[in-house]
């Protein structure tokens, strides 16, 4: 049976891991390569790096981090943040990323989704969507790391990028991010039940039960979390053991 994936996410700012609480108040939580090694050995199913500063001057640092991580970790590595062009994707893949996640650039230039999928395959293309609730079963997407609002409906957008060749959707609830009150399962299930491709749940996980709800209520194929792992509140093993006890298939 296909396993539900547990994905620790490292928000990286100028080569250092930070955590996000509603996208502000950044706290340093270590060296990304060292953290990646730990997650790799602890049984993480994938790793995700999000370069949250993404100012072009500091991009080279990220490439080095990606390269070093790929040399030490033999699980899939997704890298996102500031990815704007086919060339950016190409460089990340050649430094050792297995998948590239695109957010703002895909919203501003939807053609990029189809082009990237055609050139590197859907399997390397993750579309990251930051969504905020604006009414009953309705969410808008935000760009620029959650700083800029748009009129675009999150569900319609997810359907569109899925049709254009996205391999999966990394769906972050802006309302829940950093709150530790659980994933926005209504958002997750609304999107997941409307598209064929996998949805990765993100934003709001605070305890073990939240992971279970992300799968059972949200219909997520994978569960992403940052701070809950970084500060040692729970280990990957704790999460997987708990999910297994609730009869959710995980890789132990």
């Amino acid at each position, binding site marked *: 049976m296909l396993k539900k994936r547990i994905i620790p996410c490292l928000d990286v700012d100028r080569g250092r891991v930070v955590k996000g609480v509603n996208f502000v108040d950044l706290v340093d939580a270590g060296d990304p390569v060292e953290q990646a090694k730990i997650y790799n050995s602890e049984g993480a199913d994938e790793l995700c790096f999000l370069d949250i500063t993404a100012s072009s001057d500091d991009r080279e640092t990220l490439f080095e981090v990606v390269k070093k991580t790929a040399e030490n970790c*033999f699980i899939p590595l997704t890298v996102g943040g500031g990815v704007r062009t086919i060339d950016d994707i190409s460089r990340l893949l050649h430094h050792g990323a297995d998948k590239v996640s695109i957010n703002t650039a895909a919203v501003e230039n939807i053609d990029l989704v189809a082009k990237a999928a055609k050139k590197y395959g859907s399997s390397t293309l993750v579309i990251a969507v930051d969504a905020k609730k604006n009414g009953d079963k309705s969410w808008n997407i935000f760009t620029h790391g959650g700083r800029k609002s748009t009129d675009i409906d999150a569900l319609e957008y997810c359907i569109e990028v899925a049709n254009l060749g996205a391999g999966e959707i990394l769906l972050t609830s802006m309302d829940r991010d950093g709150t530790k009150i659980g994933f926005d399962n209504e958002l997750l299930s609304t999107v997941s039940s409307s598209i064929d491709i996998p949805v990765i749940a993100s934003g709001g996980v605070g305890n073990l039960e939240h992971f279970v709800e992300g799968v059972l209520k949200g219909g997520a194929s994978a569960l992403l979390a940052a701070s809950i792992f970084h500060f040692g509140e729970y280990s990957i093993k704790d999460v997987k053991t708990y999910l297994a006890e609730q009869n959710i298939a995980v890789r132990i």
Partner: protein
Amino acid sequence: MKLVIINYGSGNLHSVHKAFEAVNNNLENPYEIIVTNTPSEILNADKLVLPGVGAFQDCKNAIHKIDGLFESLEQVVIGEKKAFMGICVGMQLLAEKSLEFGECEGFGWIPGEVIKIEAPVDYKIPHMGWNEVTFRNHELLNNISQNTDFYFVHSYYFRTQKNENCIATTKYPNPITAAVLKENIYGTQFHPEKSHNNGKQIITNFLLWEPS
């Protein structure tokens, strides 16, 4: 001994290279690992690895765009029967044809075709993530337990014409070919380079393999 990893611009080339290097460094008699698309170097290979991600047709076109690449591969693998391993699309290319984005011819080294995964509507496509593999006993699967998880990412799969060429399967929920073998020609649908320690074991087994 030379192990050649074919470089035709595939997205997973770096990961494959790094994983093979990590495993190779632990061998008693390590290979010289060469990443190349030069026919003269391919002709000198003792073992070959063909990575591949993306669309079948794009991968095939990229290979054929490089002068003499396919011919040198054919010479070494079919002519001289050197050990060959294809990974993901690199494995699918061994088929006679693929139906992804219209019909496209493959290498035709193993009978069968590459077709879309058929799964109930509540099964996400691509088949992405860790899934259990069951297999026939073979030295390529030494030190791997039945039902071990490997990392998959694909929407199409290789349906071999002959059962004997399918040596491993996974379920989603219908059986899907996870590895193919015909004499010296081997391929995995899953990504050993991304399958942590069990993936490293698969690579070790290939490096130690001496097809008869």
